[in-house]
């Protein structure tokens, strides 16, 4: 937790005029419905992601968390409702355009290119760089500090990394260039406790640097340590919105929203 200059510009791109206002919504979903084939998954999602904050999206399996992220990314198209990013509608755009507006996405399966080396994975994520040398060295040093394994296995095929290292690579890819918003789907899934600690400290640094993050998480213990604001989903809707601290305090609310199984994680 000791990097200085490199951290400061994490969340800054041209797309963050709203971020300056501090706390105003960088991403806003209103009444979003999404169908996947014949299935109606999202039933009117309303969600605000304030700039410069970490928003946690909680909920049981099948509540629609991943579908919400995929809808923001344009991987599923919303059938109704609006998705606004930085004040402009992105609901009908194609995925590459949405990404180019400054949104990074770490999918649940991590989306690592197994046949490519770690450095090639990173180069792909750095849209502005044609060669590895052209990647911002300062940022790269910062990433190596966050995730030393990335430096160690720089020339190795990413497919040979362990599950935790793959997750680190997936997050490293999302921050190799400044992005206005980072969407992350269950980064703690299937990871050993020590690696979860590693992830936590990385996310804390990201937060400290002012990044805007929308994090889907099942592990409440992990979630409560990171979230500024929280949204809980059930049956394709957001059923609770508020401050994370509030939910973390109120066990009765946790019981009601997340069920006993969430409590059992602690």
């Amino acid at each position, binding site marked *: 937790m000791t990097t200085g200059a490199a951290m400061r510009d994490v969340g800054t791109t041209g797309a963050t005029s709203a971020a300056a206002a501090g706390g105003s919504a960088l991403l806003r979903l209103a009444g979003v419905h999404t169908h996947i084939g014949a299935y109606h998954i999202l039933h009117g999602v309303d969600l605000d992601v304030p700039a410069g904050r970490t928003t946690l999206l909680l909920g049981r399996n099948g509540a629609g968390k991943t579908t919400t992220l995929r809808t923001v990314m344009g991987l599923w198209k919303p059938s109704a409702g609006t998705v606004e990013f930085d004040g402009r509608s992105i609901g009908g755009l194609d995925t590459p355009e949405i990404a*180019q507006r400054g949104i990074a996405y770490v999918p649940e399966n991590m989306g690592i290119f197994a046949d*490519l080396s770690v450095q090639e994975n990173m180069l*792909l*994520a750095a849209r502005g760089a*044609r*060669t590895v040398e052209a990647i911002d060295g300062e940022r790269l040093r910062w990433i190596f500090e966050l995730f030393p394994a990335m430096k160690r296995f*720089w*020339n*190795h095929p990413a497919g040979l990394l362990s599950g935790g290292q793959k997750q680190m690579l997936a997050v490293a890819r999302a921050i190799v260039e400044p992005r206005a918003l980072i969407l992350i789907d269950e980064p703690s899934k299937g990871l050993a406790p020590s690696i979860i600690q590693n992830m936590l400290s990385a996310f804390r640094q990201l937060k400290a640097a002012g990044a805007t993050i929308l994090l889907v998480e099942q592990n409440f213990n992990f979630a409560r340590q990171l979230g500024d604001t929280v949204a809980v989903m059930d049956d394709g809707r957001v059923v609770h919105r508020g401050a994370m601290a509030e939910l973390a305090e109120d066990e009765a609310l946790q019981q009601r929203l997340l069920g006993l199984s969430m409590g059992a994680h602690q």
Partner: protein
Amino acid sequence: MSADPRNRTGAAPAPAGAAGVATPAGAAGAAAGDALPQTRRDLVPLLLVPLLALVALPLVGSGSTWVTLTVAGLAMGMIVFIIASGLTLVFGLMDVLNFGHGVFIAMGAFVAMAVLGPMAGLTTSPSMLANLAAVFVAMLVAMLVAGAIGWVFERLIVRPVYGQHLKQILITMGGMIIGEEMIKVIWGPDQIPLPLPQGLRGSWLLGDAAVEKYRAIAVVVGLVVFGAMLWVLGRTKIGLLIRAGVQDREMVESLGYRVRRMFVGVFVTGSALAGLGGVMWGLYQQNLTPQMGAQVNILIFIVIIIGGLGSTGGCFVGALLVGLMANYIGFLAPKVALFSNILLMVLVLLWRPQGLYPVARR
């Protein structure tokens, strides 16, 4: 089957891991101390080429005949590689089974004929340089025309059937038939001679062995195409994107790249390469028929099946094996020559059922 699957790199014999880009200072040193299993280059399929040549030597007997046959086989292999390289790119990246690939080959050859005709001044000149200039212009035009037809073909025929193999086979075969009939409409249904330019005929003598000039040129052109493909796929960001797009198209789009546009580019490039191959093949056969595309089609599908369905390196090795096998068997046992390619495919698939360098699929 026999080897560790991790040893087999998809794109090319150049290992996916090491290909690409240089290391920033410090990172390489740190990597040395760690014990991740390394991917090794899988060279065994590559060794099949010299192995086949060595096995053929005692069977052929005469050294000079063997040299002639080997050069002829390599030349044929290189031409087949150029023809098949486009298809292997399209199949590897886009997972499209394009049975209409032969159209671009035939078109390339006919366009070359049409371009070379008016340049009789250059083609009948005994100067090899003048001949090569004419052939170069023909190649360029053929690639442009084949690439343009490829662009239309992708839009009209292939785009509606992405992801549906059966429909791809049916509709691209339909496209092939239409292309063939178009050639008959433009150039007539008969066989048309395409003589080699004056200075490219005849042979160079290497000791007792005669090496036909055109075959030597074909080997050079084939190596240039192979080298260029390896360089683009292994050393440039576009190549990196192509290799990544084969593995996980959705993630590449999520990183902000327009995979669709890239696909069109690859299809057009593949078609242009087929056009180039068509020029080479036409000059090799020295006559053209509207059906030549369909005839070559079988050969190139054998090659990409041997190669591993989408691997550039596999396609290269497969094409050389096919070329050598056809020439050796044609000399040793002409009666079974037609069967030689099928025999080769059977043997390779018995050894590696997924081809020489199988392309990893999700």
